């Protein structure tokens, strides 16, 4: 039943073989292998972190781009609104200017008309007075055969003119 009672020879060789294997691998193999495995794990961790950061940045960039586009749209609509406003303002201004000009024309025309009216009045009056004088002269020629009558008439006329003026 050597299976259950350890045989010294095997224990001895097992110990020696393990010690030799362990020392050889400890000196020659494990440092290099473990260093590579560790640094590769680090590299992978860093790679994952980097990818995550890149994704974050991409998301940020996307949001930023969206912001810029929105801003541009807003500015565009602002500009359109502004130009609309300017247009209507210009039209309004033009309209009011035209109105003013028309008013001025009208006013000028009115003044002219009034002047012409006055001139016409003057002309008419002088014409009427000439006519009246002519008529009066004729009437007076007829009547003024005698001196008394003449002087009476002159007085009457003078009175009339006085009262009239």
């Amino acid at each position, binding site marked *: *039943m*050597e*299976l*259950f*009672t*350890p*045989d*010294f*020879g*095997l*224990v*001895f*060789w*097992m*110990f020696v*073989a*393990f010690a*030799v*294997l*362990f020392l*050889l*691998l*400890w000196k*020659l*193999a*494990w440092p*290099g*292998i*473990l260093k*590579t*495995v*560790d*640094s*590769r*794990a680090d*590299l992978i961790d860093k790679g994952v972190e980097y990818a995550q950061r890149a994704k974050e940045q991409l998301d940020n960039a996307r949001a930023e781009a969206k912001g810029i586009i929105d801003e541009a749209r807003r500015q565009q609509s602002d500009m359109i609104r502004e130009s609309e406003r300017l247009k209507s303002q210009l039209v309004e201004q033009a309209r009011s200017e035209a109105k003013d000009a028309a008013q001025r024309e009208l006013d000028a025309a009115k003044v002219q008309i009034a002047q012409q009216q006055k001139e016409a009045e003057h002309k008419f009056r002088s014409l009427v007075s000439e006519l009246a004088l002519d008529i009066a002269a004729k009437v007076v020629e007829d009547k003024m055969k005698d001196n008394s009558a003449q002087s009476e008439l002159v007085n009457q006329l003078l009175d009339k003119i006085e009262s009239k003026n």
Partner: protein
Amino acid sequence: MNRLLYIFILSLVALFPADAFASEAEQGGSGVDAKEIIFEHLGDGYGWEVPFNHHVRIPLPVIVNGSDGWHVFSSAHLQHGEAYTDGSATFVIGGEDSDYKGKVVEIVNGQEVRPFDISITKNVCALFITVALVFGLMMWLASFYRRNGMKAPRRGLGAIEALLTFVYDGVIKSILGPDGRRFAPYLLTVFFLIFFMNILGLIVVFPGGANLTGNVAVTLTLATLTFLVTNVLATKHYWLEMFWPDVPVWLKFPLFPIMQLIEVFGMFTKPAALTVRLFANMMGGHMIVLVLTLLIFIFSGLFGAGVGAGTTVISMAFSIFMLLLDCLVSFIQAYVFTMLSTIFISLAQVHGHHEPQAAH
């Protein structure tokens, strides 16, 4: 074509033990001594069996310190119960009725005396082969890394690396944390040595076939090494918590001596558990395959060749299943041994309550 070749080789391998035992059964005539065959195959020997011949063995060196000093000679001299006289000492392998059955003994005044024996037996030779294999594979991996930087290896080396990272990242670093790097050389050496000893043990012919991890001497040595690593490199707090735990003195009083006893007892049960677990699992696996194969001869002896032929089919199916399962068990037991060793080491790496905890 390749697959056909595999099937041919596998069926040859599967048939081999049947053939070997069959010839023996024919010669013996009177049935099979199952117990004898099983323990012969599970045990150690001074020569290595060759396929298809039960009488020729590959001779191995015998190294003994007898009554008159050291003797080194080939085990070929001791075959078939022959005595060999080297100088003034006579050696023979203990027979059936000897106290040292199957071991080299010296005949001193007609009495059998067991000399100090460190022969290169079949198990020791298999151990050397495994050590060489593990060393070669690890050097291969190391040189691959040296040449290719951080590039990942493919195919065979890739499998080795997968095992290595599985144990290193999954067990050692996750249990020991920052201490992992310190203990990794020991734990990885243990893992690969056990794994390849298990796998080589499943191969029926020459470089394999030795039941190494199913031998208590091997597992005991490994467990002792873990015990030494655990306790020699243990922290001050580990011993403090074992013998003077951080509880009020009045609480310690009634049970204190018993608790210390239990703690010390626990120190030794851990390696004992390691020893028995690996040993029993591997030996059990080998034994089941042997018993399934032997069933063929036991049944043909009892009920005739017809029943034996029927049993062959069933036995082979179960044997193949068991061997496939043993491939899995080979890995699992190496993994479990490494994991438990890591846990025992981590339990001894207790840091003070104010220091950052490295393990648990």
